[in-house]
Every structure is written in structure tokens, then in C-alpha cells.
């Protein structure tokens, strides 16, 4: 009974997911398929924004959508009707997606012929930030009614994203959301994050958002093409 001993393990629990996310990202890089991880709180306007995005890029880029936000097929159906390939992931009450679930979602969606897949992550600003999905880029939607103090409450989310869409700016006169103050708070946490003020309702700012997506998808493909050429020379 006194032969108990301490055995050191020293292993990060996130390590497995981080490795799988890295593998998925590398594979998507080779195939030139751009995956955007889109995060936000419930009701911030993800579905409305997606519908606008599909409209803005129609005939130019083929989009797919993985809907992970709660088990309801309503959003997936709306997106499908707008003309994008879409499936609803059944996440069974999980509060975040990990790289393995994302890979399975992509397989179920079928990605042949797609330029870009947008993953509508589960509506939650805490856990989703901790789990790398293997996406090429991460973005979040923060809507005006949620307030400009969100970076103080959920710093990690604002640290991991490449872009913040500030949505519902048509409602700015009704709320005390201060864009300048928000930019300052974000810059303190993440100086390289872009901010795009938009209204998915009126369409304001949607052009700049579509341009950002075009640019990111374009450079992702270019990098894949270069890697392909290098491979071809061997």
C-alpha cells in the first residue's frame, strides 16, 4: 500500500486538438479551400450576414456553410435557399466545435467545387475561442446592442480573431456603443485585428466585407498554387 509514487505527465489537454487543427489547416492549404471560422453571441446577425454574403459573391465564388449553432435546421435551410451548399451539424449540446468535428462536417458537406466554407460556430464567446477548428482565418460578429465593453469581458475571443464585424450599425443612434472606444479596446488586445462596421439589414459595409473575403480567399489559393508548383518540380 505504500508503494504509491508520483509520475509526472506534463501534457496539455488542448495538444491533441491543436495538432489535428494544424493538420486540417495544412490539408485545406494544399487544396486551396478557404475555411472561415465565424464566431459570435446568439442573435448577433450571423445568418442575416451570411445571406448577404452569398448574395454579394453569387456567380463569382462558390460558398458552403457549416451551421453548428444549435440543432435547428432553420438557418441551414435559409442559407441553402439563398443558393449556398449548407448542412446543419448536430453538436448535441456542445459549446464549441473542435478540429475533428469540423473535419467531419466538411466531409459531410462535400467540398468539391467550393472556394470557401464558412463555419457558423456555436453562439458563445468563451469556449469557441479556446478550440482551434483548423480554419484558415477566424472572424467574429459583435452587434451594437451587445455593447462596446465586450473586449473587456471576453478578452480571449478578441485576441484570436483576424477580423471583427461590428453589425447592426443602423441601430447606433439607439445605443451607447462607441466605435472609437471599441477600436481602442480591441487594439489593446489584438493590434492586428481588422474592424468592419456593417449592417446586415441595410447592406451598409457589406462591400468592404466581401472585399476582405475575396482578398483572403485569393491569397489562400495563391499560396496553394505556389505549393502545387513546388511539388510539381520534384
Amino acid at each position, binding site marked *: 500500500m505504500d508503494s504509491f509514487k508520483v509520475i509526472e505527465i506534463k501534457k*496539455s489537454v488542448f495538444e491533441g486538438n491543436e495538432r489535428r487543427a494544424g493538420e486540417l489547416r495544412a490539408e485545406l492549404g494544399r487544396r486551396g479551400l478557404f475555411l472561415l471560422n465565424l464566431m459570435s453571441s446568439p442573435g448577433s446577425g450571423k445568418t442575416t450576414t451570411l445571406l448577404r454574403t452569398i448574395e454579394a459573391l453569387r456567380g463569382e465564388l462558390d460558398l458552403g456553410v457549416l451551421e453548428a449553432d444549435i440543432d435547428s435546421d432553420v438557418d441551414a435551410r435559409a442559407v441553402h435557399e439563398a443558393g449556398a451548399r449548407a448542412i446543419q451539424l448536430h453538436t448535441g449540446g456542445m459549446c464549441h466545435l473542435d478540429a475533428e468535428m469540423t473535419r467531419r462536417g466538411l466531409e459531410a458537406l462535400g467540398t468539391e467545387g467550393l472556394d470557401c466554407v464558412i463555419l457558423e460556430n456555436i453562439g458563445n464567446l468563451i469556449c469557441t475561442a479556446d478550440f482551434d477548428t483548423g480554419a484558415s482565418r477566424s472572424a467574429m460578429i459583435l452587434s451594437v446592442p451587445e455593447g462596446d465593453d465586450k473586449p473587456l469581458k471576453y478578452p480571449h475571443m478578441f485576441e484570436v480573431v483576424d477580423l471583427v464585424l461590428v453589425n447592426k450599425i443602423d441601430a447606433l443612434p439607439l445605443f451607447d456603443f462607441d466605435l472609437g472606444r471599441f477600436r481602442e479596446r480591441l487594439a489593446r488586445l489584438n493590434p492586428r485585428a481588422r474592424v468592419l462596421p456593417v449592417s446586415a439589414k441595410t447592406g451598409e459595409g457589406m462591400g468592404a466585407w466581401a472585399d476582405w473575403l475575396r482578398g483572403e480567399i485569393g491569397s489562400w489559393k495563391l499560396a496553394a498554387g505556389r505549393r502545387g508548383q513546388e511539388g510539381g518540380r520534384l
Partner: protein
Amino acid sequence: MHELGVVMEVAKVVEDFARERGISKVEKLVLQIGELSAMIPAYVQDCWPCAVDGGSLEGTRLEIEVLPGNAVCGACGAVYRLLEHREGCPACAGTERELLSGREFLIKEILAC
């Protein structure tokens, strides 16, 4: 709550570790959780019995060490605790900083025979 899924992953890692080494009984498991991570120690503790129910770790005690979330100031080099000074460095008010610790979620060690 996301702790349960993650705690089940922890249990799996520890079970595999114990099996590979021919360890028959894990008396205690020690986790290290950074105070800035999205894992809340009390929730992790609550999930533990449920995550190991019926498995080889049933009855294993869980101990959690909380690691501080420290940053080093980019301007003056002072080290400070982020939770106490969200708005910047207490020495020089600088806002450039690098995170040193606080996001960990580590399986530190087990007590076993």
C-alpha cells in the same frame, strides 16, 4: 458548459497513459489550470466523478492547481497579474504586453502504483 467534454478527454489521456505503463491504480490526478483559461476549476471538479463513472479511473481523486495569469510589460519589463491590472501596467501604465502564463490546461502528474 464545456467542461464535461474536456474532462472526458483528460480521463482518456490518463487512462491510456496508465494502461501503457501497466499502472493498475491511479490514486490521485493533478491538473494545472491557468486562471485565464476558459475552464472553471469548480466545474471541472464537479464533472470529474461523472466523466470517470464506470471506467478504470472511478474513485481517483482530482486535485487542481490554479496557475496565475501573468504578463510582462513591453515598455518597462514589469511582470504583473492580468486579472488585477486589465487596463495596463501598474508600474508605467503601458499597454503593450506579452502573456507569460494563465491559459494552461495541463495534466501535471498522477499518484499511482
